[in-house]
C-alpha cells in the first residue's frame, strides 16, 4: 500500500499532499494535550506494524493497522500516519518522501472516516458490547479496501491502468482485510473490557476543536 516514488504524476503528488495537509491540520487542531500520549502510542504501533509479517499460504502480508488508528484517533490519524510513514520511508525504504502526502492521504482518510463511523455506532449502542468488536473489525477491513481503491485511483490518474491496478491491489489485500479485521476486532474487544472509554465516551469521542 506504499506507492513508490517515480510512478505518480505531478498533479497527483501535489493534490495528495494538499489533501494530506488538510487532514493533518484538522488532526492537530483536534489534538488536546491529553490526546498526545495516545497519538504517540498509535504512531509507534503503526510504524512497527509494517514489520510484522503474517504468513498466508505461500506468501505473507505485513500489517497496516490503519483502521485501528482511525478508530482510536479519528482525525488525529492524519498526523500520526504522516509521522510514521515519514519514518518508514527514511528508515525502511517503504514508499518515499515525494509520495509521502499521497500515501498519508490514501491510508489516513479511509481510516478516519470508517473510524468515525465505528465510534459513532459504539457510542449510540453502549450496551451492544458483543457486537462492537465486529463493527470495529468491519471498519478496519473497509478502511483497507478503501485505501486500495484510492491507491488504484492515484495510479489511474497518473496515466496507468486503474482497472488493472485495482484488480492487483484488491487481490493482494483481501487476505490483509481479513487479518486486519480480526486483529482490530480482537483489540477492540479487549479495550471494551479494560478501558471502554477509549472507544466510546470521553477522550476522542467529542471531536470539537480544542478549548
Amino acid at each position, binding site marked *: 500500500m*506504499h506507492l513508490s516514488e517515480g*510512478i505518480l504524476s505531478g498533479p497527483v503528488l501535489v493534490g495528495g499532499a494538499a489533501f494530506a495537509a488538510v487532514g493533518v491540520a484538522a488532526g492537530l487542531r483536534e489534538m488536546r*494535550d491529553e490526546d*498526545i500520549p495516545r497519538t504517540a502510542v498509535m504512531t509507534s504501533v503503526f510504524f512497527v506494524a509494517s514489520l510484522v*509479517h503474517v504468513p498466508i499460504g505461500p506468501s505473507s502480508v*505485513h500489517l497496516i493497522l490503519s483502521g485501528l488508528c482511525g478508530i482510536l484517533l479519528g482525525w488525529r490519524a492524519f498526523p500520526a500516519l504522516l509521522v510514521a510513514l515519514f519514518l518508514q520511508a527514511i528508515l*525502511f*525504504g517503504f514508499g518515499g518522501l515525494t509520495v509521502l502526502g499521497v500515501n498519508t492521504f490514501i491510508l489516513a482518510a479511509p481510516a478516519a472516516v470508517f473510524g468515525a463511523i465505528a465510534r459513532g455506532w459504539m457510542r449510540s449502542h453502549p450496551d451492544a458490547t458483543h457486537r462492537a468488536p465486529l463493527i470495529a473489525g468491519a471498519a478496519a477491513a473497509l478502511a483497507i479496501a478503501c485505501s486500495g481503491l484510492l491507491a488504484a485511483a492515484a*495510479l489511474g490518474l497518473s496515466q496507468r491502468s486503474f482497472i488493472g491496478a485495482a484488480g492487483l491491489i484488491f487481490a*493482494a489485500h483481501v487476505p490483509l482485510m481479513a487479518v486486519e479485521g480480526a486483529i482490530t476486532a480482537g483489540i477492540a474487544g479487549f479495550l471494551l473490557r479494560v478501558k471502554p472509554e477509549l472507544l466510546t465516551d470521553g477522550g476522542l469521542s467529542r471531536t470539537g476543536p480544542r478549548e
Partner: protein
Amino acid sequence: MIARPFAMLLALAVRAQAHGIEAAVVAGGVGVEARYADGSAAAFAEVKLYAPGDERVFQEGLSDREGRFFFKPTTSGIWRVSIDDGMGHALTHDIEVRDPGFVATAPAAPRSRGAELLAGLGFIWGLFGTLAWYRARKRG
C-alpha cells in the same frame, strides 16, 4: 523495491529442435532479483530491459516467482532494467556490463532492522514529547 544483479553460473548445453526453430541453451548471463523493502520477492512483476544508449525495449517480460529476471547482454555499457508490479511499486535499476562476460554484481544481504526500529521509536517519543512540553509551556 530493491533490485540486485547477479551473474548466472552455468547452464548445460542441450539442443532441442521442432518445426524449424532450433534452441540452444546459452551459458553466462545476468540475473536481476527484485525484492520489496520488506524482503519478499517481487514475483511476476513487469520487467522491461533497455540496451545501453537505446530507447527501444530490448526485452520485456515478467519476473519469475522468486522475483528474478535473466538476460544475456550483447554489448558492454549501462543496461537499464525497469520493474513494475502494476500496483504502485516500481523501480529502475542500472546494471554495468564492462564486457559481455563481466558484470559487477551485488548480492542482496539480509538486513536487520533493529537499529532503524529503535531510531524510529525514539523519534516518535521525542517528537510527541516535545509537542506535549511545548503545549504545557504555552499554557503555564
